[in-house]
């Protein structure tokens, strides 16, 4: 199983190097992500698998395609020689292999990584945090601050895209004119599917404590629902429902919610993000805290993902002008 997966991964990677049709390469990348996700599953990393699938195969691929629409599908044959890159790569690779020579074998339960910090998470978290999904516990509580940082990264990406591409506001949209043409079947399918997608998203959002999932995955799914709608029912319809300016603020609110929890506990005399300030009962305090921060993450991810999509698709209609605006 593993071997097969790895083999397929290698094939995909090599193909990605060789093929010049960027559209194909992007597709290959999507496949690659799926394979990785599967591989993660086989390594018991269910949350990661979920995310990788949603992000790698989902968002990233969509963005790349949106970009290709503008930048053209085929890559020119590169002139410059590949020897220096080859040397660099082989040196780096050699260094990595050298590094693995003393590495603990795959799956060795006595490896240092399994011995030192993680046992606490595995043994204590069900009691301390009171939720079965250890990944969520670590993500949202033990290392909740990292996740706050992560949320800010997302927020920053949103700002970045707004700054770099600007974003079409709800005014200038073309209801009905769809990106992939008018196809009744699709419309019906999507109409039927959409509610389930959104419901599933909510489920993932709330279920994060018990199974795979959490704010991040939920946000992406929720957003993809809208994206699907936008793709099928014509550019801009989604913008009418959630105007970009509103999204911007929504994203900000999401981050603020997360940081706010931290500040709340801080001003109640506890350390930043110490959930025990939220309730007298330690486990329920953890529950509340995790719920709130996951919600914050979900909101931010949703709105940023959608913003980015809008920005890219909005850009797609703009024909490349050659005349330049005089200096400001």
């Amino acid at each position, binding site marked *: 199983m593993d071997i097969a997966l790895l083999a397929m991964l290698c094939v995909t990677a090599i193909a990605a190097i060789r093929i010049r049709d960027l559209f194909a390469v992007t597709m290959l990348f999507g496949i690659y992500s799926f394979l990785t996700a599967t591989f993660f599953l086989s390594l018991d990393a269910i949350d990661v698998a979920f995310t990788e699938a949603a992000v790698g195969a989902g968002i990233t691929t969509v963005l790349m395609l949106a970009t290709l629409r503008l930048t053209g599908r085929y890559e020119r044959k590169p002139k410059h020689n590949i020897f220096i890159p080859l040397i660099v790569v082989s040196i780096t690779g050699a260094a990595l292999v050298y590094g693995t020579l003393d590495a603990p074998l795959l799956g060795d339960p006595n490896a240092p990584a399994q011995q030192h910090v993680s046992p606490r998470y595995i043994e204590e978290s069900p009691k301390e945090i009171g939720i079965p999904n250890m990944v969520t516990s670590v993500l949202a509580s033990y290392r*909740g601050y990292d996740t706050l940082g992560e949320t800010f990264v997302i927020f920053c990406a949103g700002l970045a895209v707004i700054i770099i591409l600007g974003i079409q506001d709800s005014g200038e949209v073309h209801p009905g004119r769809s990106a992939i043409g008018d196809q009744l079947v699709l419309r019906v399918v999507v109409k039927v599917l959409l509610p389930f997608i959104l419901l599933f998203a909510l489920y993932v959002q709330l279920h994060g404590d018990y199974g795979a999932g959490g704010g991040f995955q939920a946000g992406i799914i929720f957003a993809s629902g809208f994206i699907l709608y936008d793709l099928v029912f014509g550019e801009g319809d989604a913008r009418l429902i959630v105007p970009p300016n509103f999204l911007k603020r929504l994203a900000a609110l999401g981050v603020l919610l997360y940081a706010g929890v931290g500040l709340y506990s801080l001003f109640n005399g506890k350390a930043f993000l110490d959930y025990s300030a939220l309730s007298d009962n330690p486990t329920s305090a953890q529950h509340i805290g995790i719920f709130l921060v996951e919600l914050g993450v979900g909101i931010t991810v949703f709105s940023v993902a959608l913003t980015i999509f809008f920005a890219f698709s909005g850009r797609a209609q703009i024909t490349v002008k050659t005349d330049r605006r005089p200096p400001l």
Partner: protein
Amino acid sequence: MSVVDHLPILIIIIPLIAAPLCVLFDSAKVSWLLALAACIFSFIGSIKLLNTITASGPISYSLGGWQPPWGIEYRLDLLSIILLLLLTSIASLVVLFARYSVEQEISKNRIVPFYATLLLAIAGLSGICISGDVFNLFVFLEISSIASYTLISLGKDRRALNAAFKYLVMGTIGATFILIGIGFLYMQTGTLNMQDLSERLPSLYDNRTIRAGFAFLTVGICLKLALFPLHLWLPNAYAYAPSVVSAFLAATATKVAVYMLLRFLLTVFDFNFSLNTMPLDVILIALGSVAIVSSSLVAIFQVNLKRLLAYSSIAQLGYISLSIGLASKLGIASAIIHLFNHALMKGALFLALGAMIYKVGGAELKHCQGMLKRMPLTSLAIIIGGLSLIGIPGTAGFISKWYMINASLEAGLWPLALLILFGSLLAIIYVWKMVEAITLQPSTSTATAPLTRDEAPLTMLVPIWALVIANIYYGINTELTVSLAQRAANILVGGY
């Protein structure tokens, strides 16, 4: 716990939170005020922290109330606080400066997100300097990086876009290397907490995984540090970014990279392993020397002053890495001193150029015509900053040079002393190129600008001159810089 106990997190989180607030209020003026307030708050906070640390040693703050190594720890020692002081002070000045410069250089509907992103960059960099957890450090590194790519891409000249992209690719490669390095360390120790690592690593120094991890961390950081030959992203990035951004990044970003280097080499790993067991000292000296000479030479031939200064920055980083490579207390100390002083010089110079761009519309030699008459204060600032860059006695630059040369003599490497001085000679040439262009009377034929006095607004002059005066002050009274740097070096070389 009183608010003061929370300062370590507050000085990071306040600028961080200010960013989404800017977006919520969605008004240029408010964003500016918010940013300014946040930066000044952090500045005051770091001053308070400095006093606590000098009085009662390093501070540890466990986030989420989870004890390290299970939770994330914030840890402040002298080195961190030096960097934080630098960052927050420069950030405050730059934001103060930004008001008009931004209005002119950045389109109206981008100003709000601009300030938000700038705040994220500031917070990200501060977060790096304060974090006691290697992965948390990585996260904040990414916040600051993504913010910086964006800020650079805002430059008016379209080359800014290409520069930003280059930086993005290089930076991400560097980050991934760092990630791999951290992975290797984790693989063998099972921990991410710096102190915990520093306790567990020594027994593993012969382990090949650890050594590989060390290599990847170093290379990754050196990419961010723009150490020759990994510097190619820097010149255009600094040259074509908006003035404010160039000033801020030039003064702080690479310095934080140096901080990361020191932190990993001397705290996570230890002095003997990093600079004696591993051949890093030789490498740093070699690359540093090449950087000094080559970049200074390139700088001489630039017509765009921002680009000129960017190359000089690479040279200065050469000095710093060279001093680290000397592998002595004095060397480390002089590296820290120069890190501090160079930030002051470059901050002053880039801000001054920013003012020049604001008034004259460009920062190339041809724009310098009659600057002295037109903007005397700005010109004077550029001249003094330049002298400090050369290392003329009476300026901060001289102190750096003094200690670096002392360090290399102490290490018995007098050729390096000569090299450093030779670098200053090259500096004389490219600095004097600026000074001549500025002080030169406009010959009637090429007199482009009217010679009426037309000085930059006060919100620009104040930050510029604050930095210029700092340059002179720290050239005469080195109580703060030198003593702090030496103490920090002692701690680092001695261990956490």
